[in-house]
């Protein structure tokens, strides 16, 4: 099973990687809540959030190209939502159809920035440590046991699907010199069906292997995480910084715009 496409940069040594998963989870989700709670239309605060998030990304040593590649996978959905908002306002409330409202564009941009920063934070969260440690952290923070087991199983089984995708693609390519000349939809459909059937069989074998070694619903973790004072202080400072800025930024910006 190939874990590298999720845990690719989890072994890097950086101050962010060294923080306990629980602290990283709290920091990331608090930051997302603070950023998302910004009122629509005001773009200046996002410059501050952007600098902070990019600073964390730089400290984490995760290659920018990797972060960008990850962002590109989800960005089209975010862009679609951000673009469709101002367009949805045209032709309403006496405005002519096709006339874009400045306010609508600003709101669309804030929607984009909020989603994009949340995405960046999640990419940083999942790339700065092993995913199963993150799950263990969630369990320690009170995630329900059943949800924890399901997530842990899904984490393991997603690699089986990935393995089978690679194998069947190799088998297909080995017999396809150039373009597929027969009905492509049928070929891809058959491959998809085969991936699911083979993954099901393999996941049964993996589960048998877990059972044979005493698996009873809990994934044991060899390295018990320790929440150090430093982790608490760094997380507290990070969250407090964003929170204080969120609370005071509106009057400051108003003052800045008025002068």
């Amino acid at each position, binding site marked *: 099973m190939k874990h590298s496409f999720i845990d690719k940069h989890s072994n890097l040594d950086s101050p962010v990687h060294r923080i306990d998963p629980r602290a990283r989870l709290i920091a990331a989700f608090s930051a997302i809540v603070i950023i998302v709670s910004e009122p629509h239309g005001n773009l200046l605060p996002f410059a501050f959030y952007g600098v902070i998030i990019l600073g964390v990304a730089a400290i984490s040593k995760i290659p920018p190209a990797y972060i960008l590649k990850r962002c590109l996978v989800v960005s089209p959905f975010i862009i679609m939502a951000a673009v469709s908002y101002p367009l949805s306002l045209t032709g309403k409330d006496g405005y002519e159809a096709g006339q874009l409202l400045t306010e609508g564009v600003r709101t669309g941009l804030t929607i984009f920035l909020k989603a994009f920063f949340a995405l960046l934070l999640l990419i940083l969260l999942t790339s700065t440590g*092993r995913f*199963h440690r993150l799950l263990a952290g969630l369990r320690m923070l009170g995630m329900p046991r059943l949800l924890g087991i399901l997530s842990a199983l899904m984490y393991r089984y997603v690699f089986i699907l990935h393995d089978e995708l690679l194998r069947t693609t190799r088998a297909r390519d080995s017999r396809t010199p150039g373009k597929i000349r027969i009905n492509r939809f049928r070929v891809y459909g058959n491959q998809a069906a085969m991936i699911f059937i083979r993954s099901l069989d393999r996941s049964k074998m993996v589960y048998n*292997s877990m*059972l*044979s070694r005493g698996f009873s619903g*809990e994934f*044991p973790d*060899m390295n018990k995480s320790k929440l150090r004072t430093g982790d608490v202080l760094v997380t507290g400072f990070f969250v407090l910084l964003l929170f204080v800025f969120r609370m005071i930024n509106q009057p400051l910006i108003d003052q800045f715009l008025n002068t």
Partner: protein
Amino acid sequence: MPGGIKIENLNFSYTTGNPILKDISLEVGQGEKLGIIGPSGAGKSTLLLHLNGIIAGEGTVRIGDTIVEKKSLPVIRKKMGLVFQNPDDQLFNPTVEEDVAFGPLNFGYNRQEAAYRVSQALKAMNLEGFENADSHHLSLGERKRVALATVLATSPEVIAFDEPFASLDSVMVVQLLDIIEKLDATLVIVSQSLLPLISCCDRLAVMVSGQIRACGQKEEILKNERLMREGGVDMDFYRRVYKKYLA
């Protein structure tokens, strides 16, 4: 009989109704090494899954003095280790250390004891220094040894191997045979690789269509060419190849 295996009148069929195991009775003494040969689809792997209680048929399976049943599964799985044919089915954790520690931690050993068991099991498999390696980046031979280490870390009394020599080159087969030779446990080895199997087992059983056709000293079983052919082994082929190229 601590550490031995006793199977009595074991029958099993999947929901489709075709019987997979038919009235199997078999006994393996403590510390004995039993090899099982048979053609594909004979039910060999299914029989091994019964030893660990992963599937349950009608009849009785005993590991040592413990009957394999639902309430005894935690004890059985501690006593009996299963090495799967495909190491990728057995290695599902991100690192070798976590894979090998999975069993000991599940069986209630503390982290310190589990870490000690991991180091001992990896040492026995000549895999020292592989603790933080990603299992899927290892060669097949190394993955097979890690799979065996995951079982050894729980110090089982009985170990069952499903096709341990499959896809290995002869150098790796010899390495694995050396490791098997040193194991202090009752062994059941299912394999279609005749030469490695007879070189490491005390007794041989032939399984055909869900039944044990014969079980006895390997020398006696090997003499019965008709029986061996039923078990999927053409002794004449070995003889011809040996005479032509190796004699």
